[in-house]
């Protein structure tokens, strides 16, 4: 050994010294020289180190819940419910809580870009001035009939603006579609309400004050219409606002989270929900005596009991329960309406409500009046028929430019619709996506909108509160990246275009459009009143929206509800497989937009506790017959496509049904979403029900073993539930 200290040794020693320093001083110097930059001019409502709270609207789903965002030194750090907001009264769901991970998502589209070749991922950065010119030219260079807008279910203000622009331009109205509306078959419910209750809109079901509630497939505790409002209603129903603890019965082939909270779960054969409603109606009518209403005249209870899988005794018991209730309520929804006979099912259930005499009553069915804000604009999503029309036009080359906002067609729409081919046939596709989703990847330009927490806007709350609510959005933080509000981009393009269009659309920016839109509310009897728009706007921002001062629901017309004869056609299914496929939107992934938020990925699914993946639920008996164990990868084959997923043996599902959550299976959409799980959208048929909605449950699939095993990350295994092996 030499006495010489080599350079290598010296470095080692120096490293050790540094390490010792770090240990002995608790990492002092490194964390010491942070810099604190005070405001140059502090906003008057800000105190150093104190949080500021802004009221805005959650846009993780179209329900329109009010939220209050805690911001700290210009950063949004926590989402809390808005306590005065009448939809959610200060409460939030898991998706709302995780919305911050959208704002601060590491995979956002950070600036306006042109893609050099669709799907190439080769982007050229543009300035916003260039972007406006691109939009302007797109509007100017094409005939109005060749311009199409495809929008999501939120935000409503953008849809109203787009409707105004297309009307002035002479272009077709924007098409609004999204997985939430699709899996709730909203048009079906509204159409049934139009036929039975005389008003084509989504009814409000006063769950809170009902004492006996039957739900026909409505998964109102998960994603249906307004889950937070209905969860609150559920809790009040259980605590017995109607006098005693309310009773809940759920009819559906797979025990959903909602059904797991029900007192009884009737695992009926898919497509027989409407029959059950008719049978219950007939039994209730019989028990009351007198002439049977026309609607329930031709009902054979015994045959229905046989066809549905529920025995007659149970039906009679349930009918007695319903007949004896003070505030009975029946709710149609979910997969029951997503069948070929979905419309008739919804009609039967609504007619049953009319028979029970709860229309417009406490604990019954009511309607929400329309607000004087762009009144007459469609608030429901478009039907699949209308969407298919657009797709056909695109395929035929009749659409030259397509604007896409708030929806991810290549992920959300049934693959059988072949939207990808249609999209490829459109010469110019402009996406306003905030995230690099599948559709943005197949677009020519991405002009990223702000994320919802950086945006202005409004959203009509899904009917669930006791009055109409217009929920307001405002930016809670300065835009994090070089993004721009889509409304502002459109308005700038319109102004640049000039001429009649600019005269017809006179707004200088998004906020002016919003203020002009809500002008009609200033003179209404709101819960706050203001003499003019500026004061109104200040309070609008403070409270996070506007709603009437008093409860204001209207009573549906019951006149024709029971006099129409109701017949339920047998449900038709596509495909030859032996299992009915039951697809439900994951309560955490929602329409798929939850998948890029790591904490939603790691939040366990309520029923299976699976994290970070998708799965297929099979009855344990069926699995045993097929020789399948948990985590075995199977291939599901429908006439429209095939996917692979790991098996989860789910004890509470009909043996002839398999279920799969929707929301995973992205091929793009950022690091947390891409390449994770599989999407049942590939298996769905393009089959419509009587209301023109997608009959998404109308498909049979085959199961093939693959021999592969892919373990699912589950929270429950840690607790040893299945730990016996």
């Amino acid at each position, binding site marked *: 050994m030499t006495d010489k200290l080599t350079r290598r040794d010296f470095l080692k020693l120096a490293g050790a010294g540094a390490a010792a320093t770090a240990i002995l001083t608790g990492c002092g110097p490194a964390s010491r020289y942070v810099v604190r930059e005070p405001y140059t001019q502090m906003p008057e409502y800000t105190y150093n180190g104190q949080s500021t709270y802004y009221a805005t609207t959650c846009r993780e789903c179209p329900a329109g819940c009010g939220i209050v965002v805690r911001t700290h030194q210009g*950063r949004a*750090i*926590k*989402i809390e419910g808005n306590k005065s907001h009448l939809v*959610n009264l200060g*409460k*939030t*769901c*898991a*998706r709302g*809580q995780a919305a*911050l991970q959208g*704002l*601060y*998502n*590491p995979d956002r589209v950070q600036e306006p870009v042109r893609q050099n070749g669709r799907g190439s991922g080769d982007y050229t950065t543009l300035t916003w001035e260039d972007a406006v010119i691109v939009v302007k030219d797109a509007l100017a260079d094409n005939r109005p009939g060749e311009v199409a807008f495809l929008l999501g279910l939120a935000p409503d203000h953008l849809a109203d603006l787009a409707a105004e622009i297309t009307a002035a331009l002479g272009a077709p109205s924007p098409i609004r579609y999204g997985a939430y509306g699709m899996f709730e078959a909203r048009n079906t419910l509204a159409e049934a309400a139009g036929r039975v209750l005389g008003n084509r809109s989504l009814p409000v079901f006063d769950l809170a004050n009902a004492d006996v509630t039957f739900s026909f497939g409505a998964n109102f*505790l*998960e994603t249906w219409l307004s*889950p*937070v409002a209905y*969860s*609150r209603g*559920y*809790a009040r129903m*259980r*605590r017995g606002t109607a006098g*005693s*603890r309310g009773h809940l019965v759920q009819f559906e082939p797979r*025990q959903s*989270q*909602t059904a*797991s*909270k029900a007192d009884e*779960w009737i*695992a009926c054969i898919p497509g027989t929900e409407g029959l059950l409603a008719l049978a219950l109606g007939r039994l209730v009518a019989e028990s009351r005596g007198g002439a049977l209403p026309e609607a329930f005249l031709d009902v054979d209870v015994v045959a229905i009991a046989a066809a549905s899988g529920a025995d007659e005794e149970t039906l009679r018991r349930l009918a007695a329960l319903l007949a004896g209730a003070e505030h009975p309520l029946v709710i149609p929804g979910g997969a029951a309406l997503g069948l070929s006979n979905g419309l008739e099912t919804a009609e039967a259930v609504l007619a049953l409500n009319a028979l029970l005499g709860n229309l417009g009553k406490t604990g019954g069915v009511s309607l929400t009046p329309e607000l004087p804000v762009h009144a007459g604009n469609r608030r429901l999503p478009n039907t699949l028929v209308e969407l298919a029309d657009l797709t056909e036009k695109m395929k035929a080359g009749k659409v030259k430019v397509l604007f896409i906002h708030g929806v991810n067609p290549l992920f959300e729409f049934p693959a059988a619709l072949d939207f990808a081919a249609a999209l490829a046939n459109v010469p110019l596709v402009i996406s306003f996506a905030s995230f690099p989703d599948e559709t943005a990847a197949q677009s020519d330009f991405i002009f990223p909108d702000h994320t919802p927490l950086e945006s202005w806007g409004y959203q009509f709350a899904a009917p669930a509160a006791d009055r109409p609510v217009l929920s307001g959005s405002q930016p809670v933080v300065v835009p*994090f990246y070089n993004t721009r509000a889509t409304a502002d981009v459109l308005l700038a393009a319109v102004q640049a275009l000039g001429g009649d269009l600019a005269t017809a659309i006179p707004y200088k920016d998004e906020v002016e459009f919003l203020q002009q839109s809500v002008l009609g509310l200033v003179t209404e009897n709101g819960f706050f009143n203001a003499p003019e728009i500026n004061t109104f706007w200040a309070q609008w921002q403070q409270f996070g929206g506007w709603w009437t001062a008093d409860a204001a629901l209207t009573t549906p017309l019951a006149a024709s509800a029971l006099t129409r004869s109701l017949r339920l056609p047998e449900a038709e299914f596509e495909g030859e497989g032996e299992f009915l496929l039951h697809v439900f939107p994951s*309560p955490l992934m929602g329409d798929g937009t939850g998948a890029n938020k790591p*904490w939603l*990925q*790691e*939040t*366990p699914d*309520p*029923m299976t506790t699976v*994290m*970070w*993946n998708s799965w297929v639920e099979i*009855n*344990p008996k069926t699995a045993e017959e097929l020789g399948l164990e948990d985590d075995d990868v199977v291939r599901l084959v429908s006439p429209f496509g095939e996917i692979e997923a790991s098996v989860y043996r789910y*004890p*509470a*599902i*009909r043996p002839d049904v398999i279920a799969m959550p929707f929301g995973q299976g992205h091929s793009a959409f950022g690091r947390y979403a891409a390449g*994770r799980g599989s999407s049942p959208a590939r298996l769905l048929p393009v089959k419509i029900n009587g209301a023109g909605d997608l009959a998404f449950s109308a498909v049979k699939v085959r199961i093939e073993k693959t021999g592969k095993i892919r373990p699912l*990350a589950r*929270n429950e*295994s*840690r*607790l040893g*539930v299945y730990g016996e092996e």
Partner: protein
Amino acid sequence: MAESKIPVFSAKWSEEEKGKWGLVVDQDLCTGCQACVTACAMENNIPFVGEEDAAYGRAMHWIRLERFWEGEYPQVKATPFQAVMCQQCGSAPCEPVCPVFASVHSQNEQLNIQVYNRCVGTRYCANNCPYVARTFNWRDYDRPEPLNNQLNPDVTVRRRGIMEKCTFCVQRIRKTEDAAKSEGRDVYDGEVEPACVQACPAEALVFGRIDDPESAVSKRMQSGRAVKLLEELGTQPRVTYLKGGD
């Protein structure tokens, strides 16, 4: 003989200890929606661990919803969701086993406090916890830029080798107490809301002072449905569960 300078640590709890803060979980109302789980993660800077570690049971949930199955199809029933978090035991099994006093009892707040800067990661406390309420940072979990912008400045960001668990959102308790004191008043009932309680859409969670008989939480604890988890172990849990329906 000179008096020893080494402080004497002794358990001070007794059977009649009333506690201070308590939580009531109404399992009849809980819809299992997981809002509490996510809200807790957002408030308390809980890292996400990814699929592989989650599959190893290393997910860091401070609160989890337990669901079991009863019976067989078609008479199968999911048991009511049971939210399990640290029960803030009055006589906590995690405390005496910690060799470095990182798991200590707060005499002031009557909570079990995990002192992160003392913790050396022996995991004895987690092994001794009958509720499996503690989670361990097996790694320095990555929070890529700019996700770190949402970190709550009121809660320490833990690093690898640290044990952590539900704190009843002690940062909110302290903040509210401080605000009340600065205004010269007492904290009123319902003023402190841990993140889970605040989020819960069904209002299945109620938080408050259990030493105040008039508080909402005390009143609900009087319900005939009230039970405590593994009470027979003598842990004196501060979380009360309401089973069944009224």
